[in-house]
């Protein structure tokens, strides 16, 4: 193959490229281009590196003028930020993708059976697979949801399950993200910009499309109502929410109203929105507001983002909420550790995608192990996300470690620990050079009449050298993700 011989001379920048013993998605340990990248590197090398860097800058400008942004709370100097985008895509070979897709379908099926079970007859607890106290002590468990049966018994309609690839070349599930996972708008935005940036390359590559996601999302949401032409809306906390762009984008792409809590009102056991023509009934709400903020009457009384009384309407089945309130219990990182058991219990199958080995500080033996080996582990708060509340043992100071040890001893239920995983890397343009940067992958799964897994998903990349944290709030960027047909 000629491209393999060409590999070292693709661009001068790749000459000095070092893999540092990590799994590289583009380059094999021997320095050869992996088959799935051959076509791309072949075509890109025809452009020359300077041209590629120039197009990177054009792509950055396009994001600014299109206003594809997210909001950062802590940043004083301006609310909106661009999610940095790197134009070298992450490519997933089709065989690997098929395995991922099967694994995700299996996992989300088990998780939905689990949710219906624990808010219902609790067989999995009675059979001794998961202890009751773990469920009841989870921040995501809502006792108000006991006995509820959402439409089609589905709780987690939309999920964004995070995967990482270890140095052994296997994909592991890192988190399930069943509450209100964000980022799908960047997948669509990235693809759009990628097509404009490299039309000549994209044209001839057979990349599986992602653009029909909003349509599939709408179909799934409509399926939740028994009315013939249900009214679907997206509920947002408002323009100051970090993911506001996405809420607005999804509503626009689906052609439905984007509402805030103050636009909705409960009357006579139904939910209505205030329009210029008076009140209009709402049947399905894709809520991007956290569980406990949706109804100040039943949950957080201070919430101004929700709609008083909406939970009563939901309980009567007069409105559908996606995802179902109470779903967050399965997002608890302690409960995550039990997902492989759930798969065996409900489906009688072996898990296709493994979990990252997880130590539960709640368990005495595990806890002792974690406290002793904290220097080589990643400790995470069981109920936080977005890269907050975590400790990376290998990259932390002694006092940070001590602080986490104290927290673990005081609140053992609140912490889990995992061995430090070597996230795989993809070549990335950094300061007019090409460097290896760590990535993860968040494919999006829709659970409706059938299960749809978006081909590819969001590849997040940790732009800081050596960093393993890919979250946008922590200096992460993203890449277009290609599943080739």
């Amino acid at each position, binding site marked *: 193959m000629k491209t393999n011989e060409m590999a070292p001379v693709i661009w001068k920048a790749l000459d000095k490229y070092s893999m540092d013993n990590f799994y590289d998605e583009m380059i094999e340990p021997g320095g050869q281009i992996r088959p799935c990248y051959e076509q791309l590197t072949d075509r890109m090398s025809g452009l020359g590196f300077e041209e590629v860097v120039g197009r990177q800058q054009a792509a950055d400008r396009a994001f600014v003028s299109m206003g594809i942004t997210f909001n950062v709370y802590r940043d004083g100097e301006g609310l909106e930020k661009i999610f940095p985008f790197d134009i070298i895509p992450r490519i997933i070979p089709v065989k690997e993708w098929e395995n991922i897709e099967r694994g995700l379908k299996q996992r989300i099926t088990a998780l939905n059976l689990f949710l219906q079970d624990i808010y219902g007859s609790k067989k999995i607890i009675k059979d001794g697979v998961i202890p009751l106290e773990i469920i009841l002590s989870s921040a995501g468990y809502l006792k108000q949801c006991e006995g509820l049966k959402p439409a089609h018994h589905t709780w987690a309609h939309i999920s964004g399950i995070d995967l990482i690839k270890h140095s052994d070349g296997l994909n592991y599930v890192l988190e399930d993200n069943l509450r209100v996972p964000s980022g799908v708008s960047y997948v669509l935005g990235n693809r759009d910009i990628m097509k404009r940036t490299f039309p000549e390359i994209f044209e001839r590559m057979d990349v599986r499309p992602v653009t029909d996601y909003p349509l599939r999302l709408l179909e799934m949401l409509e399926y939740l109502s028994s009315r013939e032409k249900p009214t679907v809306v997206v509920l947002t906390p408002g323009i100051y929410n970090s993911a*506001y762009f996405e809420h607005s984008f999804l509503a626009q792409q689906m052609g439905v109203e984007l509402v805030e809590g103050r636009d909705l009102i409960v009357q006579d056991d139904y939910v209505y929105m205030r329009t210029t023509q008076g009140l209009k009934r709402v049947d399905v709400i894709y809520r991007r507001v956290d569980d406990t903020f949706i109804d100040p009457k039943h949950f957080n009384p201070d919430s101004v983002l929700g709609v008083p009384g909406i939970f009563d309407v939901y309980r009567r089945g007069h409105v559908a909420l996606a995802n179902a309130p109470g779903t967050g219990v399965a997002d608890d990182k302690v409960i995550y550790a039990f997902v492989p058991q759930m798969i065996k219990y409900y489906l009688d199958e072996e898990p296709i995608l493994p979990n990252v080995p997880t130590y539960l500080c709640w368990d005495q033996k595990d806890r002792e192990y974690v406290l002793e080996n904290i220097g080589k582990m990643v400790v995470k708060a069981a109920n936080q996300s977005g890269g907050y509340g975590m400790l990376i043992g290998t990259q932390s100071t002694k006092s940070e470690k001590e602080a986490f040890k104290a927290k673990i001893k005081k609140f053992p239920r609140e912490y889990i620990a995992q061995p430090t995983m070597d996230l795989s890397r993809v070549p990335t343009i950094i300061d007019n050079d090409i460097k290896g940067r760590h990535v993860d992958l968040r494919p999006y799964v829709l659970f409706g009449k059938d299960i749809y897994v978006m081909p590819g998903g969001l590849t997040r990349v940790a732009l800081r050298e050596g960093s393993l944290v890919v979250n946008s709030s922590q200096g992460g960027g993203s890449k277009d993700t290609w599943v080739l047909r």
Partner: protein
Amino acid sequence: MLSRVAESICWMNRYIERAENYARFIEVDFNLAMDLPPGTIEGQWRPLVLTTGDEVLFQELYGEFTKNNVIRFLAFDKNNPNSICSCLSAARENARTVREVISSEMWLQINEMYLSIRPMISKTSHSEKFMMEFFRDIKQGSHLFSGIMNATFSRNEGWHFGNMGRFMERADKTDRILDMKYYYLLPNIDYVGTPLDLLQWSALLKSASGFEMYRQTFGKLEVANIVRFLILDKNFPRAVRHCVITGGRTGGFKTKVEKEMGKLRSELDYTDVKDIFEVGLHEYLDQFQTKMNNLGFAIAETFFTDAVV
């Protein structure tokens, strides 16, 4: 359509139109400065601020009506909620809350206008050449926006609310541009009808982009005809009557707004320029402002607030 969304689309359009018209206000004085003998333009900057109705705030922030102060206040000052920069920020903020409803092209245009003015807010002075270009860009940007809206946005409720916002704002501002003449200084009463007087009138016409269209309609510059043209003309797109007709097209008279709008329109239909001078031009323009304000309240009450429930 959601009441909140309708309101935002309406205001998004109003703010852009307002920014455009502020650029036009300032151009009146630029036009005058070109035509008047050197030195005589000083003292003519005050009317600009008086016309906008924000003189109290101006006094607080600046005090003296110098050229630099007035331009800074009207164009770049973010402490003035009606300055060009403030309007464009507000327009964008409104656009951001309705991005899912408007076309991507509309959003892109607003966002780009906003991004282009952002670096100017912090600068304290600008060259004459820069400002001429800046005001031209603002006008162009606004035209581009309304063109994009007309070319890409379905004629649904949202479009109508946006259109109404734009034309209400424009009617209000043409009214104010005319009223500027009231504040312009003439050496004494004998100067009425002299070349200096007519120079001032033609500067107003120019800043409403009406000079050429006026020429085609009436030819010679005459005060009565200029007033007739800017208020009562049915066909000139910045004339008050044209704005009321275009912005207020309604389906019937079901709501209070439609009744008020219809009343305003028929008043203009049956007004003669003689009637205006009988009341007094300044008084007539003032009364019109009040009517527009009341119409604004009626719109908010009927379509936008919780009262809809």
